[in-house]
């Protein structure tokens, strides 16, 4: 019995460390230069970039709505970036993304204590408030939605992008 309990204890510890390291692997660390890397990787493709955080109340409401939108629009590129002003665990972010149906999206997490520099590379005017959604069109034009985004607005933008694609 004692051996069984010890085995269970070891299992719990291994499972805990494994789950956390998996989550860390799955969340891409967002550091200096990552923003340009994302822009380059998605160039020419309409892309939704969503900044959010585990401790952000409005994000908790918006994330599942975005997850549903993505489910209905599988063709669109979606990037999430956890930019919580109260930095927290990749595992916590990962868990929320999965619950919101965004587990298979391209998920990043701020990974540099000098967040002013990370934000400055993205948008010098951004002081870090989240949620924040950046819609990047096929030709690289960006539309920034501060605060919670309405999915109807994202749908309109997406329809415009689809229309642009159909034009000769």
């Amino acid at each position, binding site marked *: *019995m*004692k051996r069984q309990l010890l085995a269970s204890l070891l299992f719990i510890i291994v499972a805990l460390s494994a789950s956390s390291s998996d989550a860390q692997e799955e969340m891409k660390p967002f550091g200096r230069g990552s923003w340009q890397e994302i822009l380059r990787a998605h160039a020419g493709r309409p892309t939704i970039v969503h900044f959010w955080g585990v401790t952000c109340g409005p994000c908790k409401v918006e994330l599942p709505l975005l997850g549903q939108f993505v489910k209905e629009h599988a063709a669109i590129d979606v990037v999430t970036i956890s930019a919580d002003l109260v930095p*927290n665990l990749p595992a916590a972010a990962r868990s929320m993304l999965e619950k919101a149906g965004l587990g298979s999206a391209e998920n990043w997490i701020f990974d540099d*204590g*000098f967040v*002013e520099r990370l934000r400055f590379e993205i948008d010098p005017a951004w002081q870090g408030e989240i949620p924040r959604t950046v819609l990047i069109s096929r030709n690289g034009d960006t539309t920034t939605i501060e605060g919670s985004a309405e999915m109807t607005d994202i749908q309109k933008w997406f329809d415009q992008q689809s229309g642009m694609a159909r034009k000769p």
Partner: protein
Amino acid sequence: MLRTGRLLGTIAFALWQTVAHAQMHHQHASEAACDEPALRCASKVTPTFAPDGTLWLAWMAGGQVSVASSKDGGQTLSPPVAVTKERLNLDWGPDSRPKIVVDREGRISVAFSIFRDKAFNGQVLYARSIDGGKSFAELKPITASNESQRFEALALDSDGSLFAAWLDKRNRVPAQQDGRKYEGAGLFFASSRDGGATYSESRMAKDNTCECCRLGVAFAGPGRPVVVFRNIFEGSIRDHAVVTFSDLSTPGEIRRVSQDEWQIAACPHHGPSLSVSTAGTYHVTWYTNGKNRKGLFYARSTNAGTTFSEPLPIGRSDRSPSRPFVIAGAHELAMVWKEFDGEKTAVNLMTSPDDGVTWSAPKTVSDTPDTSDHPLLVSDGRRTYLSWMTKAGGYRFQSIENEP
């Protein structure tokens, strides 16, 4: 067997806590230079001058809150004394920091927030020292409420009373149970008339204020605290407001500082700053990203917060100006804020010789190539000093004006 099981369960829980805490700590440890309770490892440092002219610092580092004092304007510090007895999950949000005040009898009061669970529910704790900072009493919660509280402010009245204000989520659950939408948090307050040993029952000054920004507190006169906060006005507009108390337990009307029209459902974590000059003028600085204006602003009120001047923009808009702080010193009004040029963060300073009517041109007084705390100003009644914790250069404490 049952005891063995319980023992193993306890060990498993303790290990899980350690793993979880270490992971959580790792995630924000990069804001600090090191991971010990020492000042050089601090992410946040708060200064105050005692009535006898001693400088006191309270800081958070390595999961602990500590204090030290200096008799020579910050050049040398006393050995640090821990306020916390163990490593805690301190609130490490950008607008969180330990608060410290020292009264005429040398009693030191400290307050700060922790995250008390994995859902990031906060709790405001306080402790005091009655032996000149040699030791601190056990930490106590500032309110018996178990709902989330954060963003405490602590201020000393002229008669030695302490005034505390914080943001408190206790009205959220009842509202939701009634099927009502609940926005933000309540602005709650309490006071202590026994030198910080106990605090009065907490009361609310305003419900539905923005839940994630620091508060600014100053006194308009003896017994009349003023609080500036990011309010939520009709239509989810997160603009700033002040409330002036007629005594430590009676809040007055809520007055709007400016019509920025920042309609946003988001957490700015970027709160205001307030100072009241000897002439009674209210000086407020704040950040907004509103429809009417964006960036840092300053405004003054010469009628006890009833109306405010036209907001004055602060800093270079292409350099991400942030974290403004204003103080009415003995000879002039001073304001600092941060600017970032893509490589370095600078602290810029402006001063006003005429109580905020006119301001000097901004000048850079310090900079750093890595992450840093908010710049703070503190006055000993003669001179004003900049207090700034930087990861790369450690703690900096410097006079920003010449002694008269």
